[in-house]
């Protein structure tokens, strides 16, 4: 179906009737908050019974620029987003290629693949806290049995290991969805391309670079740009894993903004942080939209 809008009056009118029940709730609880949220960053709004907000221009932003925690949360947010997205993508691509061959437990692997994605993030966090527990967790147990370490490591509690540990969990959660998406993309590739290439004597590696990757391009750009946005916005998982600690080493932008708003009551400041996040997201989104428009053209 083409996305051309030919605003036919009759169709418009009928569509409006069908939209009516949804219109008020969407305007009141979605569109208005979206716009109000963007605007709040330019005010001094505080939590409190009677919120009096004054326009203060870029005041919050200049305060953010001088806040070390803002810069570090930003840096951590980017490290987290890029590491999780890229590593999970590479793993997922390898896996999707595997699952696309006629292996045995393919069905099992595929079903299993989506469970982490549907689990409550809080449960995923609890599960990984059990796994990474310094004294009772199996990960430490295995590492010590393999003599890779002689003392238990408090993965989530150490300055140097907390962020990598959290990233591993992020990959665990995100990989399944990426894999299944890539798998669908792989199955959409015309087989005759490979047959033709094989006749021309192209080996597996050649076929991968010259057929698989180019054919998957649209899917790859779509899923990685969305993954980046989702990862950049993520909250619950890390909140339960580390709450941003130890010493702010896993303080993602959303955690920073949440603390600002609901711990210290600085609504305006938190919204300003949200505004900064929107700017970053627009960059990620631009890739996605450009790709989508091109694939529709």
């Amino acid at each position, binding site marked *: 179906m083409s*996305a051309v*809008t030919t*605003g036919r009056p009759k*169709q*418009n009118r*009928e*569509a409006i009737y*069908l*939209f009516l*029940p*949804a219109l008020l*709730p969407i305007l*009141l*609880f*979605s569109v208005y*908050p979206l716009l109000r*949220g963007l605007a709040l*960053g330019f005010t001094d*709004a505080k939590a409190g*019974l009677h919120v009096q907000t004054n326009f203060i221009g870029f005041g919050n932003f200049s305060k953010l620029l001088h806040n070390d925690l803002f810069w570090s949360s930003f840096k951590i947010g980017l490290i987290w987003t890029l590491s999780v997205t890229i590593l999970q993508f590479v793993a997922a691509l*390898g*896996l999707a290629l*595997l699952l696309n*061959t*006629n*292996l045995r*437990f393919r069905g*099992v*692997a595929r*079903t299993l693949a989506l469970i982490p994605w*549907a689990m*409550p*993030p*809080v449960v995923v*966090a*609890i*599960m990984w806290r*059990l796994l990474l527990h310094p004294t*009772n967790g*199996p990960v430490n*147990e295995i590492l010590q049995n393999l003599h890779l370490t002689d003392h238990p490591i408090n993965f989530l509690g150490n300055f140097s290991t907390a962020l990598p540990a959290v990233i591993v969990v992020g990959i665990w959660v995100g990989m*399944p969805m990426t894999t299944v*998406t890539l798998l*669908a993309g792989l199955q959409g*590739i015309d087989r005759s391309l*490979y047959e033709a290439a094989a006749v021309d004597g192209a080996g597996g590696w050649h076929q991968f670079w010259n057929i698989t990757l180019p054919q998957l391009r649209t899917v790859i750009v779509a899923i990685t740009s*969305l993954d980046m946005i*989702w990862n950049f*916005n993520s909250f*619950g998982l890390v*909140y*339960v894993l580390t709450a941003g600690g130890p010493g702010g080493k896993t303080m993602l932008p959303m955690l920073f903004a*949440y603390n600002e708003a609901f711990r210290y009551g600085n*609504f305006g400041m938190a*919204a300003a942080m*949200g*505004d900064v*996040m929107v700017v970053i*997201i627009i960059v990620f*989104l631009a890739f996605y939209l450009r790709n989508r428009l091109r694939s529709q053209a």
Partner: protein
Amino acid sequence: MSRQRLGTAPATRAAQYVAVVCYLIFLGFPLLWLISTSLKSPQEFASIDPSFLPKHPDFSNFTDALEEQGLVRSMLNSLQVSVASTVLVLIVSLPVAYALARFRSRLRPITNGWILVSQVFPVILIVIPLFMILRPLHLTNTIPGVVIVYTVWSMPFALWMLQGYVAAVPRELEEAASVDGASRVRTIVSIVMPLLRPGLIATAMFTFISAWNEFFFALVLLQDPQLKTLPLVLARFVGAEGQVQFGPLAAASVLATVPSLVFFAFLQRRLTSGLLSGAVKG
């Protein structure tokens, strides 16, 4: 499949199996560990040399978890919130999804834009104004308040899924009905809805799971311990580390995951294709 020709070298094959097994371990081990912990006694959990499988599996952690009043109440809260928002989402979304799939109105690009924006917008920007709107209405810290928020914020995805299902219903059937003199509403109710049933079920389950799993809005909007949903109560358990009982915590986590598992048992295949047609084609 695609790159494989008939005679894949045995070494390659072996490497592939090793890779798949690694992957199954990476994905499956955490889940198995959670389940195994939920079946272990406190002594066994605390043993210096934890074993993978419980030596004397029993369900006492589950009964302990269920005796925990806060936990049962939070499950009932979650159930209420999830059922109510699922029903509301379906009622409100179905006509919109129908309009999106069938009419070329000006609302279509606007709605699709809204769907995309709402999926990528940082929730912090939404939750603060929502908090400010709901408070004067006395809806913060109430179940109805959370239901409203979940309903509106599950709609984008529900619309995304439902649009696709509506588009798959052959138009000819509707045209036939309208030739027979049926009104638009009548056509939707008696022709489209029955054919949409699998799609409605899939969308309902998806909405239910999102509400069941949701953490952020609930964290901000619900303070009263009586009203907290399951994810909030589970998270609070972990926060109180030291006196935390890992066995019952693992058991409660397993229970919290049951809806997702049921969901998959039902619609593994359909779900993936549905999500993907949305994600890739848009």
